[in-house]
């Protein structure tokens, strides 16, 4: 491909991406060094905002919680997604129905899905999950105030929302696995588990990686789910980084753009660290392709 052609083809996309995304990033970095309100120029304060964020224990614990949440959701979503993909792949006539049902939770807006989800656990709205639990035990689970029950509920909600994506991608991967590979494994006498672990999974490595990237990106910035699900997030240590940003900078019509931007910059850095393996992979692949 000629150079000129390459650039003609690629420029509109670069223009849109860089034009609309690079300016915001530049602005974010600029604001992170300033004391600034909406629509004002602000005053330069150097690294003050960074010091403020980094010395706040709440920021540290929100980073820990978010990273932990991200990693555990990622594992659950991949394992469960794979099992579901295998099962759905074996379905016949029921396949479109089952796929359609499983897809729904992925396409509903987070804030709406999370609110519906919270009604299942909130006695003030019927709390059907509590009724079911009540059949087995007299113990009231305090889903919204106690740290671990709340974590589990939040985690369940995010898995609920992300599972369809994972299953879909892994299902697509499974369909690309040549029949011979599976057959060959059978002839070797490998058990079911072994066949999946050693033959099929490695051959859809790429898909698993793709699910991992997207899950990391999306869970690391979880925000709107927590509004209905974790009203006590600050008290019980279940504040995500994005929620921390919101609480510190923008709640109650606050406009601490400087501090908010600092946390955004730091989030980008955390994200980059978590993406290093994928970045290396892309570099290698693009060079050799």
């Amino acid at each position, binding site marked *: 491909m000629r150079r000129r052609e390459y650039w003609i083809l690629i420029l509109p996309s670069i223009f849109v991406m860089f034009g609309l995304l690079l300016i915001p990033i530049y602005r974010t970095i600029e604001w992170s060094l300033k004391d600034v309100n909406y629509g004002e120029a602000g005053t330069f304060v150097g690294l003050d905002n960074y010091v403020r964020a980094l010395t706040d224990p709440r920021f540290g614990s929100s980073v820990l919680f978010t990273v932990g949440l991200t990693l555990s959701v990622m594992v659950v979503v991949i394992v469960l997604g794979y099992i579901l993909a295998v099962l759905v792949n074996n379905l016949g006539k029921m396949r479109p129905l089952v796929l359609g049902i499983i897809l729904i939770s992925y396409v509903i807006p987070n804030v709406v899905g999370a609110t519906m989800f919270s009604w299942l656990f909130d006695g003030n709205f019927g709390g059907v999950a509590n009724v079911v639990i009540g059949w087995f035990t007299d113990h009231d689970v*305090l889903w919204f105030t106690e740290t671990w029950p709340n974590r589990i509920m939040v985690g369940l909600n995010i898995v609920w929302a992300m599972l369809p994506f994972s299953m879909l991608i892994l299902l697509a991967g499974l369909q690309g696995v040549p029949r011979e590979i599976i057959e060959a494994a059978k002839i070797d006498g490998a058990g079911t588990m072994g066949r999946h672990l050693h033959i099929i999974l490695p051959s859809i490595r790429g898909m698993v990686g793709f699910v991992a990237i997207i899950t990391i990106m999306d869970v690391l910035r979880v925000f709107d789910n927590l509004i209905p699900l974790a009203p006590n997030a600050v008290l019980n240590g279940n504040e995500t980084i994005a929620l921390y940003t919101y609480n510190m900078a923008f709640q109650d*019509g606050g406009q601490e753009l400087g501090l908010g931007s600092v946390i955004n910059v730091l989030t980008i850095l955390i994200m980059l660290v978590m993406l290093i393996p994928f970045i290396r992979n892309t570099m290698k692949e693009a060079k050799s392709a």
Partner: protein
Amino acid sequence: MIRRPSKKAALAVGIGAALLLSGCGAGSRTQDKNAAEVPCEFEAPGSATTVNVLAYNSSAIDPFTNTLVANCTTDEVDVVHEPVDFAGQVQRTTTTLAGAEGTYDILETYGYIIPENAESEKILPLNDLIDKYGDTYGLDELSPSMVEAMSYNGDVYAVPMQAQMYIMAYRKDIFDELGLEPPTTFDELRDVAQKIQDSGEYQYPLALPLLASSDIATAYDSALGSLGVDLVDHEAGKPNFDQPEAIQAFEELKSLAPYMDPQVTTFDQPKVQQQMYNGDAAISIMFSGRMNDLVQESNSPNFDKIAFAAPPAVVEGGKQYSTLSVDGWSIPANTSLDEDMLFNMIGSSVSEKASLAAIPAAYPARQGLVTAENSPYGAAANDAIENAPAAEPFPYTAKVSNAVRPVIAEVFTGALTPEEGTAQMQTIAQKVLDAE
């Protein structure tokens, strides 16, 4: 499915599409039946104009908003109000006032944030317009104290439409059955709650809005106010969290915890309403604008068992456990529309006829309008408004309250002792004051 669409599916999609495309009947009814029919007259602007109104939706605000929209829309002037929740209104007030131009032309606002926006000249002083149109809309009958609550440094920045203060709603049937009287102090409240709890019908008889990320600050402020102490000593420019009452307020609030749901720190006002609708709680204290909902037959099977009283005082002889908040209309400084036109719209929506139509959903800002006859909680409201702690109309009040809120929540849940908490709050609040 794709290759051979079934006839039924095609039909369903067809009907759906037709409905969608035509928008048949969409938006054909107004939301509220208690919008009054009042004259709204202003000089025609001469060209097609859109007036954007920012006001959060709630039972108490809606009548005024709906009256404004219904009566002031003409062929030429389109008055637009899109539904928004309270948090959305707060967020949008900040953004629309930030730049040289904003989206909104009429803002719903409240006493708490007026000083801040008035000081930065983001909303217009309305004194001249009030003089000019006072007679037309009977504005001299607005309660002077509520006009005062909408003022900053001697200028009026909003036309008050209504007041909100805490009211206590309780289950008359339970109280009668157990021979209880509505409590007038926290002591009595604990006593009554204990008796209801002991009767075995209610595990958690009391519900207060104590949402840790919002309402709990108002609750603490109310308790402190009831003990006769402001958040800030405004003369000395010092927070009052080093006063003994600051600790006492915590102890009193915490003493109610055994009678409340263990998840009460997640309750906002709608959830407290749910507690009453569902019969999970027998006593609740929240803002008056939420009260009329409780006695609507369409909302709850318990609608006819609710009675109202003024909230108790924290200690005998003190002010009531309450916060007085006045809502009003203001005009943003960055609107491009004619101020006279906007003021006429505001005036018509708070006129006597419009205000009467807002009862009992709201407690209008006109003197003597609400009575025990025209509002189920009228007597309680008239008592409550007399005995509520005074508001603190300073630009930093809201900031102080927001800044110390996380600590208040931590003390209430027991993560901090009241002593530790008040010490931290004193430091945090002092920082806010120093920055002003």
